[in-house]
Every structure is written in structure tokens, then in C-alpha cells.
């Protein structure tokens, strides 16, 4: 009885630590009140550099010290001893529907795909649900920033970058409406039911619809005389003045090439999303400064005759070709495995620190937030985490502290709560 009581108390305490969370996400952290120093960890800066036995200091949400630890005075700091541990910049999830979909199969919880083919004016940021139960499970794996991308149609809508510890979407917005998501149609599409590739009969029409949209939008945005406001055309103006990026979902050589031609014609800053076949045409991408958000490495090869490890080694192929790329994943809940997508590539020859860059600084560059995030460099936002070991390997990827703009976030999540709840049940039965 005593024991039972004792464990019940522990359980209650655990619940308290979880912030009375049964079905709610953790409480967003308060602003950084005191300077924090992480001491002794192996710091992976995200820019390719590593500092063994490092000192990482931040204050007021910004990184102030990134250097080797040489017994510097740390009086003013709250010190976190991290010998044997690793520090990384917060991982960035590009192209995710996190916060847009809560339960995949339940329509009422899906806000990722608006009806119609051209929706450049729709904005993912306002549908981003900061209270999603999924978000805490992602950030407890070191993912601290995310690009929330709409899907569907030809032009899916506008993406925004959020930090993953917020009260509401305004709070969450790290860079709002920063890009437009375009999905190029495939010339042929694989018919799962038939087991064959079928010609996309609508291909020419769809390509024309896209081409016409961009031409019309460009004209509209340049027009100086009075004009009737057109929300759809207006939405593209940022592309032509360089304030927005065009993210194009394209995997085949054909689609990637069409995207490059389109971007070139209108002098748009282009990012390829998916990029399965990008390694086949490195010259075209490099010449046109096209970056790639790579799909998950833990994918099947696209063709039966492909090398069995092709998706595993694609990051290395892009790295060697000198293309700016980052490693992405798919969906929303899946993003908790983002780091392992890079780990998989390391197993197939990618340099370790390059793999870290592909999750952090490269992603920040591609998303246009590298002035504030993506690496551990003085002056940047303190968005980082400490893990017990190598974060790319599931053997050691346990995240123990995480900070977003200096705020130490709660790493608890619904799944941990359920874990403890049923640990308690079985403890009582013992």
C-alpha cells in the first residue's frame, strides 16, 4: 500500500512536470531570463565546423559565445555541464504539413490541401495549429524550426517558417509567407492499380495553365497604372521582386528541368522540392543556382533497375556535385525521424558535418533564414539542443535540452505522458 501510494505520488509529480498535460501540448517557455552557458560538449556548428569541449553561451535569445572551453569565467551564466554530450543547431524541417494535419485519415483535421488548381493566395501560416499534439513529439527529437508548406493543386499556396514553441501562429511565425509552393504535373504518372506508367493527358493543359499564370502575374506586378486588384496574381509579386522563393515539387528530370526553365524565364529564385532525380542533372542546377530540398533518404529507389541504395547515397551525390541542398522528409509526424534521414546518408558515404549542415545551415540558406538561424554562430538566434550522443544515430539520439531563441523548451509530449501513465499502471500491479 505504501509502495503504491509512493508510486502514485511519483506519477502525480510526473504529471505536474508534464504541465498537467493530458491532451494539451506543453506550455511555451518564457523568454530567456539569464545567460546560459553549455560547457564541455562537442559542438557541431552546422557550418561544417566542430568544436570539441566547447563553450556555447547565449543571452537574450542570441548566441554570444561559440568557442573552445578554456576554463573561462562563467559567473553570470546558468551553466549546463555537457561533457561527453553533443550540441547542434536546431534541426529545420523543410516542407512539412506539421500543424496542418493532425490525423492523416480524418478529413476534419486536414488543412493542407485547398480545392482548385491555382491557390497562390492561400497562406499556410494561419492554419498552422500551434496546439497540435504532434509538434512536441517532433521538437523533442531536435527539430526546432519548420517550414509549413501547403500541398495539392498546381500552385498549392504560400509557405511560412515557424519556430516550434508558440502560443499562436503569430507567435510562431519565424518568417511568414516566404515562398510559393508549385507542384509540377508529371508527364507520365505511375498507375498503382495498373502497374504501369500512364500518359498524363492533361499535361500540356496544366503546363500551359502554369506558364500563363506566371506570365500574367509578372505583367500584373509590373503594371504601374491603376488596376483591379487580383489576389491570385498579387500573391506572386514577391517572386519577381526577390522577396519570395518559388518552391517546386519536382522529382523527375523532366519536371526539374521545366522548373528551371520557368524560373530562368522570370528570374525567380528557385528551390526544387523532392529532387529525386536532381543528381542526374547537376550541371543545370548549378549553373542556375538552384537549390534542392531532398525527399527522405529512407525511400525506395524510383525504378526497379536503380541501385538498391540510390536514395541513401543521393545526398552524397549532390554534395559532390556542389549543389546547395538540404535533407527533408515527408508528411508531419514523420519529421521526428529527420535526423536519421541524414544518418542514413552518412552510412552511405556523406561526410558527417556535411550531413549536419544538410539539416541546419543549408536548410536555413535555402529557406532564406540563415541570417538568424541554422548554425551556432555569434549573433544568431540561440536555436539549439543538447543530445546525449550522436543525434543522427538512433542508438544515441536522446535530446536532453533544447532552446528556441534562448528559451528552454519543454521536451515533454503526449507520448511520454502516456508512457509514464502506463508505467504507473504496471508499477501498481507489481
Amino acid at each position, binding site marked *: 500500500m505504501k509502495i503504491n501510494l509512493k508510486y502514485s505520488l511519483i506519477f502525480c509529480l510526473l504529471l505536474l512536470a508534464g504541465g498537467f498535460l493530458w491532451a494539451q501540448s506543453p506550455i511555451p517557455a518564457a523568454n530567456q531570463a539569464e545567460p546560459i552557458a553549455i560547457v564541455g560538449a562537442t559542438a557541431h556548428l552546422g557550418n561544417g565546423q566542430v568544436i570539441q569541449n566547447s563553450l556555447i553561451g547565449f543571452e537574450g535569445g542570441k548566441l554570444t559565445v561559440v568557442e573552445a572551453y578554456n576554463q573561462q569565467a562563467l559567473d553570470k551564466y546558468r551553466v549546463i555541464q555537457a561533457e561527453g554530450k553533443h550540441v547542434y543547431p536546431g534541426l529545420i524541417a523543410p516542407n512539412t504539413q506539421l500543424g496542418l494535419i493532425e490525423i492523416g485519415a480524418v478529413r476534419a483535421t486536414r488543412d493542407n490541401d485547398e480545392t482548385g488548381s491555382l491557390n497562390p493566395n492561400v497562406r499556410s501560416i494561419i492554419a498552422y495549429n500551434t496546439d497540435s*499534439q504532434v509538434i512536441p513529439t517532433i521538437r523533442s527529437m531536435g527539430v526546432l524550426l519548420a517550414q509549413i508548406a501547403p500541398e495539392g493543386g498546381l500552385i498549392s499556396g504560400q509557405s511560412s517558417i515557424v519556430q516550434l514553441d508558440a502560443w499562436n501562429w503569430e507567435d510562431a511565425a519565424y518568417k511568414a509567407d516566404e515562398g510559393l509552393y508549385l507542384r509540377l504535373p508529371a508527364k507520365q504518372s505511375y498507375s498503382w492499380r495498373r502497374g504501369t506508367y500512364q500518359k498524363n493527358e492533361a499535361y500540356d493543359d496544366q503546363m500551359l495553365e502554369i506558364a500563363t499564370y506566371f506570365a500574367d502575374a509578372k505583367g500584373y506586378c509590373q503594371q504601374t497604372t491603376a488596376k483591379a486588384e487580383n489576389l491570385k496574381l498579387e500573391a506572386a509579386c514577391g517572386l519577381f521582386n526577390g522577396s519570395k522563393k518559388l518552391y517546386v515539387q519536382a522529382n523527375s528530370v523532366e519536371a526539374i528541368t521545366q522548373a528551371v526553365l520557368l524560373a530562368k524565364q522570370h528570374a525567380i529564385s528557385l528551390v526544387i522540392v523532392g529532387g529525386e532525380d536532381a543528381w542526374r542533372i547537376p550541371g543545370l542546377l548549378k549553373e542556375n543556382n538552384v537549390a534542392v530540398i531532398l525527399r527522405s533518404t529512407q525511400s525506395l529507389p524510383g525504378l*526497379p533497375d536503380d541501385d538498391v541504395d540510390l536514395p541513401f547515397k543521393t545526398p552524397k551525390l549532390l554534395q559532390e556535385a556542389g549543389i546547395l541542398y538540404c535533407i527533408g522528409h515527408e508528411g508531419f509526424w514523420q519529421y521526428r525521424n529527420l535526423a536519421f534521414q541524414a544518418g542514413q546518408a*552518412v*552510412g552511405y558515404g556523406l561526410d558527417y558535418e556535411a550531413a549536419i549542415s544538410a539539416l541546419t545551415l543549408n536548410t536555413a540558406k535555402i529557406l532564406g533564414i540563415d541570417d538568424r538561424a541554422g548554425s551556432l554562430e555569434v549573433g544568431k538566434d540561440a536555436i539549439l539542443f543538447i543530445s546525449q550522443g550522436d543525434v543522427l544515430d538512433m*542508438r544515441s539520439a536522446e535530446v536532453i535540452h533544447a532552446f528556441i531563441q534562448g528559451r528552454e523548451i519543454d521536451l515533454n509530449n503526449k507520448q511520454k505522458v*502516456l508512457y509514464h501513465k*502506463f508505467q504507473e499502471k504496471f508499477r501498481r500491479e507489481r
Partner: protein
Amino acid sequence: MKKTIRFILAGLMLLVTSGQLFAQQTFPRNGVYDEREGWYVFTNATIHTHYNQSQEGATLVIHNGKIEAVGKNVFIPKGAIVTDLKGKHLYPSFIDLYTNYGLPEAKAVGKESEKKPQMLSNKEGAFAWNEALKPEYRAAEDFKPDDKSAATYRKLGFGCVLTHQMDGISRGTSAAVLLGKERPHEMMLSETGAHHLSFNKGKSTQAYPSSLMGIIALLRQTYYDGQWYAQQKGETNLSLEAWNAVQSLPQIIEVGDRLEVLRAAKLAKEFGKDYIIMGSGDEYQRLNEIKATGATLILPLDFPEAYDVEAPFDALQVTLAQMKHWELAPTNPARLAEAGIKFALTTHELEKKDQFMEHLRKAIKYGLSEEAALKALTETPAQLLNLSDQLGSLETGKVANFIITDGPVFAKESKIYQNWIGGKPFELKDLDAPDLLGKYALRVGNQSFTLHVSGKAGEQEMKLAHQDTTTLSVKHTYDKGILTLVFSTEKEGKRIRLSGTATGKNWSGRGQDIEGNWVNWSATYQGPPDADKKKREDKKDESIDNLGVVTYPFTAFGWENRPQATTYLIRNATVWTNEAEGKLENTDILVRNGKIAEIGPRLSDRSATIIDGTGKHLTAGIIDEHTHIAASRGINEGTQASSAEVRIGDVINSEDINIYRQLSGGVTTSQVLHGSSNPIGGQSGLIKLRWGFAPEEMKVANADGFIKFALGENVKQSNRNNDYNIRFPQTRMGVEQVYVDHFTRAREYGKLRNSGKPYRRDLDLETILEIIEGKRFITCHSYQQGEINMLMKVAERFGFRVNTFTHILEGYKVADKMAAHGAGGSTFADWWAYKFEVIEAIPYNSALMHEQGVTVAVNSDDAEMARRLNQEAAKAVLFGGVSEEDALKFVTLNPAKLLHIDQQVGSIKVGKDADIVLWSDHPLSVYAKADKTFVDGILFFDRDQDIQLRQAVQKERARLVQKMLAVKKEGGKMQPARGRSQYREYHCDDLEREE
């Protein structure tokens, strides 16, 4: 002589039109009696009496549509019409066993646009429950001679076809018919030629069966139902009555590929049938296995066209298998003939029937002997139809079905002159056309020319030499004795038109000159034509040298030579034994005869191939408790609440590239499961990943039988569209009742079976009864705790236990109950949030179940994830702190236990199967690669060898691309570069609905 023949032909035509050779005794006659006996004699021919026998200068006598005599010294009755066939050949005409000649297209019964799943047949009357079962259909009743269609067959030399309606799984009976013009009464040689079956449900709009395994199960059940029907009195079922009646006929089944040939043969064997299998033309890819079945085949000749591979990136979509099949398909008949497999040939599947001869010649060029080809068109089909007494050779008493050619029948230059069917001629080319070849003095009015007629008789060219400077082409036609010439005497000039008849070799008549004046003309034979200067056809023949080899399987990364078990000594590895010894450093493993022979430090064996394991880790092969790879045409037969009768083992697909991919991830054994779309799914197939071996060879021998059950949203159809709201159950409440009801009925069934009273063998209930009797084991797709608990209670009520809960994402909530019940849990490492019933799924699930004493496995349900199940196991260390050795067991020993094969596999122990993996790194690390994967001591994946295979793929593709580019350059017919992946990747809620 010529005149005579012409006259005779004219007479024959009359006969044909009056159609009186085979008298219709029952029909009233309108007009005057005009039936003729029809004595015809053909002399001086080379008569090919049989596919392998011929006589030169022989005579054929026919009378009343039958062969009266054939041979050298036969009696020629007085008054017979004699045709001299000097220089001509006479063959038995061809037989095509696979046509729908003269039959209407099948139509769906009822509305085709019905959206709601159709549970029963729409056909009215006391017929089968399933719309795809139509044994009662009789082609004979629908048959109507169709002269246009018949003419296309006749042109190719066919005289008789077997015709059936190509729709349904049991398609009813076919009729053997002659390709003449008369009433069906006369054209039908046999109104019940054969019973036709297929692995395709055709126009049936009924939901069941939706998968190949469902089709096979339906056929098996129908065989049993037929047996039962014959002994019972309570039910009238016209389909079963017909089914029983047609069993004595030849059984012809159409299949979709080489593996289906094996499946059909297996089905035939089970029920003591001799199927004649309508193949797909890729049989050479599994030649030995097909030969071993002893089956007889009907082969199509629809060789694929070359792919247009000019655009390099588009061409990537075309798989090596497609390219290789393009090259090797024409060798199929030759390879089968060489292997001694009996087959007939058909025009079926040809895009256009008139491609037949061209394709057949191609097959001959690729090695098929002319004799074998002729046999496959005459004797074999006659035999298969049990009509050898009437067809297939030219012998006394047989039907007078023969063709007259001017050379060996398959030679490119040869022409078919006449095709006689039932003693009546169809003239394709005029046998009496005069030999016009020669040099003539042509006189028109008072003008003189020289006319040169050269080329081949019947297809001659005429040229006019005028003033020895120009040659002008002369257009000419010859029809029934009248020759017409049209020409001009100068280039682009006005034309002279002449018409006349022959006297001997000279011609004369009247015509009009360019002014319209009527003039006389004559052409006087001067002698043979000048030597033929015609250019020889020098179009380069496509090469049949250097053909690619057949690999096993017939895909990229297939083997040229079957891999063999070898003695291996793996030295100095870190060995994860999964046994009491735990992890052993610096340890050697000796593999011999497919087993683990020795484990220990510094082993030696002189015969062994040494593999250095320094710095590497060795584990038991990964066992995937839940996969859907390596299955053909659907993994769900979810159209009924229970489909216990279907068996994944019937549809194992040995050619799935994912087998090889998963070997590269260390997987050695997989349970291929039925999907999760109904509460009681189908029986599992347990395979070892013996890449390149045939389906039956991949199966784990003597393994316990398993069956898939499923709970929750999939079986309630809750994530499907609103039309799917009629099949019971639609709620969890209903799911329980499905189980209780089926187990109750199965128990009753068992009682009846054991009582000795007659009973209907029910494959569904029989399988469910096996569960109650402890002979079959459940692996149940499950998520929420409530229903997991429910199924355990149902099982306990019926006295058995649930072997495994698979997915079991809320297993952690009832882990204690599962442990007490004795159920294992095979789960995902970290999946959740994809549907409502998984919102409380947690990655700590495996750890919590493990702590409670549940045997825990981590499975894939996904062709991609299966390649890194070691990483998924590692997540149990990260989430919940399971020890590394225990975590590894989640994907090796524990699934072996759950599958009852832990006596053979799952750990590194002397005497166990050598299913082992040598890893480059710690096996739970994301960085670990399976360097070598052995199954039964056979090295099925080796990273070094894989590099060579990749190079081989590239080289072979490059060779075939060049070959296809050459075809295009020469103007060959091409098809667009469109990929075909025959092997689909399934997840457990994927529903098959074939289009």
C-alpha cells in the same frame, strides 16, 4: 487444262454459295434438290500428310467434305474433278484453340455503374452465387458464322477454331467450328469443345473476388461445391450442374504470366485435372519449373515492339526486364519446344491477326523448327480437342481441311492459294493464273513494242521497251481469263487501254488508243524473260546472335547462375548470438551445408571460403513478421467479412525486386500477410528471401499455418468513401460478432464433419476450424486496446489463444493481459497520427510490452522500412531503454518465435539454418550496412557482388538500347518508352481493384 480448272472453280464457287455439301436434313427446302457429292482430286502435289511426313507427287481425293484417299497410287474415280498441283504443296489446315470467333462480346449483368459493393451475382435464375462463374454458358448456343472474321483466319491458313466467350473465371464451354460460311449446324464440329477458365473475373461487377488469391480460392471452392452438388438433393444450382457436366471436357485456362502458369498447374494437380494453359509468352523465364509441371500450353505470338529509347531520361523508365523480354520473347516457342513442352500456337493476343505469319516466321528464325511449328498448328491442337480422328493431318476419313501453297508453308515467299474447309475451297490466290513471264512482241494497231514480263508468277512486273531508250511501266490486271493492260508510250503521256484473252502463250484482243480509236492488239510470246536483274533484298536482318541470357528472376540483379550453398568461415567478428552466450567478440562462425556448423575462436576448415569479419558484426538474419512484398495481384480479399479461404501462398511473387532490396537490408525471412480490410483475412505465406528461386522454393517448408485477422477502422471500412457502408461489420460491435459467429459456425462445421454425415466442404469454415483446433495461428492487425482485449476474450471462449497481435500500437495499455493470454506483439517502432485509432500510439510501446513479458517483434508492413528494421529495433533502446541485445531480438529471434520457426532460425546456434548477416557496423546503428546476407548458407546478397551486378545492369541496358535504336533507324515499329513495374508495393490497407 487451264480452262478446265477455271471452269471447275467457277462451279465450286456456285457450290459454295448454294451451300449443300453437308446436307441439313431437318431444314425444309425452298426450291429444287441440289446436293452434290463433290468428288475432287488433287494430283502431283507435295502432300504434307502430317506435320512430320510428306510425299511428293502425291494425290489427295476428297468426297463429301471428307478425305477419301491420300497417297501415291490412289484410285481416281471417274467424273471427279481433277486439279493438277504440280509444284504446289498441300498441308492440313491450321487450328486455333483460342478465339472468340463468331461470338458476341460478353456483357455485364446488371448496372455497371453501381457504386455500392455488390455482394451477390446479379444474374437471375438458379445460377452460381458468383457472377464470374458461368460454366453454364455454351458458346454453341451463341455461335454465328462471321465471314469477315473467318476470312482473316482463312487467309492465314486456319480451317478450324475453338471459340469461347472470353469472360469470367469459369467461362463455360467452347465450340469447335469450321471457318466456312454455312449455318452453324454445319460448321460445328463439336458443340462442347472444352471448358474454359481464367484468372480474371472479367465483366463481373460483383465485389468478390477482388484479388488473384480470391480467384484461386473461388475455383478451389467451386471444385468442392461441384463434388458436393453431385451428392445432394436440397439445392438446384444450374451453374454447378453445368460445372459437373463440363469436367469431362478438355480444360483450358488463361493466365497472365509465367508464375500464373505455375499456379494454374498447381491448382490442376490438386483436383486431378490436366489444364491446357493459355500462356502469355514469357514462359521461357521460368522454363524448368513449367516443364516440371508437365502442363500443355497454348502460346501467343505477340512479341513486344521495341521501345523508343531515344530520349535518355524517358528511357530510364523502361526496365531491364521489359527490354530483355523484347529481345527474347521470340525465342519462347523455340525454348519450350526444345524443353519438350507440348504446346499449340494461337493468334490470340496479336494486335492484328495478320501479324501471325510474320511473328511465326520470327519464332522460327529464333530457333523453332518448322516441324514443331506445324505440329503446334495441326496435330497438337487436334489432339487437345480430342478431334484427332477428324483434324490435324491428311488421312482417310478426316475432314477435308487443307491448304494449297506454292512452297513450304512458313517460307516468306510462299503464298497460300486455296484454303479448303470441309471440302469446300476458299480461293485466296488464283491457282489458274497463267504464267505470264516472258518477252513478248506487242503490237497495238500499227505500233510495235517489246513487252518484258519479269518477277514472280502471279506478282509479275510488266515493262515496255520502246525505241530501246525508255522503259515504261505497264499496269495490268488479270481476272478470270481476261487480261487488261494500261500504259502510255511516253513519260507522263496519255494512256492506251487494252483488253484480251490468251491462246496458248499468246494474247490478243481489242482496245482504245489515246485518241479513242478502237484498235486490235496482240502480244506474241518470244521466249523467257531476260535474266532477273532485280535487286536482292539487302535490308539487314535483325541479328539473332548474341542474345542476352535469361536471368533468375528475369529482372535487374537477377542471377545468371543459381547461387549455391558453400562452406564459409567467417572470421573474427562480433557475434550477437541471441542465445545465453550473448555477444561474443572475436569469434569465428563456420557455415556448412546451409547450417551453422561451428561457433568459436579460431575455427578452421580447409574447404571453406574465408570471410574476414574483423571490425564487423554478425547477427541472425532479420525476420519481418509483417510484410506485403512478393505477392501478385492483390493482398486483400476484403470483399467479405471473412476470406479465410484465400492463401497468400498461392500468389507468392518470386520476381519482386523488393526481395533483393530487402536482402541488402539483412532480411532473410518474411511473413507475407493478407491485408487488413476484413475481420478474418487470408492465410499467410512464409518465405525465405531466396532471390531467384521459384515461388514454391521460397516457402519455408513445414511451417505452421498462420492467418491474418484485423480489427478497427480498416475492417469497419471507416476511411473509405460512403458507398462502403453495407458490408457487415461497420462498427467494433459488429466485429466481435463476426468472430463469435464464424467460430460458432466453424465449431458446428467440425461437428458435422466428424459425424460422418455428408457435408459440403467449406474452405472458409475449414480454415477457421483449424484455428480452434490449434492447427492454425492468428496474427491480428490491431490498434486500440478495447478490441485487442475483446479478441483475446473471444479466443479464450473458444479455447485457443491469439498468437500475435500485429501493429498493436496500444499493446502497451493491455500488455499485462496479452502476457497472461500468451499473445505476442509485433509492432511499428514509432508510427502514429495517420488515423484516428493511432492517436495514442507511442514509440515506448515495444519497451512496455517487453517489460510485461510479451514476446515483442518490430515489423515493417512496408517495403522501404523492411530494409532497415535493425534501425527500427534500435528505437526501442532510444524510447524505453530496452537493452541492445533484447532490441536486436525484436527483429530476429522474437519474430522467429512468433512464427514458430525459432527452432530453425533467429539466433546464432550450431545446427540452425545459416540465415545470417554480416554488418559493417554495430547492427543497431543507423550507419550499419548489411555487407553480406546468407539464407541457408547461400550468399544471396553481397555488397561487392552488388557492384558487379549494377555494372551488369548498366551494360545490358546499354546493349539493348543500342539494339533498339538500330531497329528505329531501320524504320521498325516502336512503342513509347513507358515503364512497367509488375510488382506493386502494398501496405496492409491497400485494396486491389484491377482495371
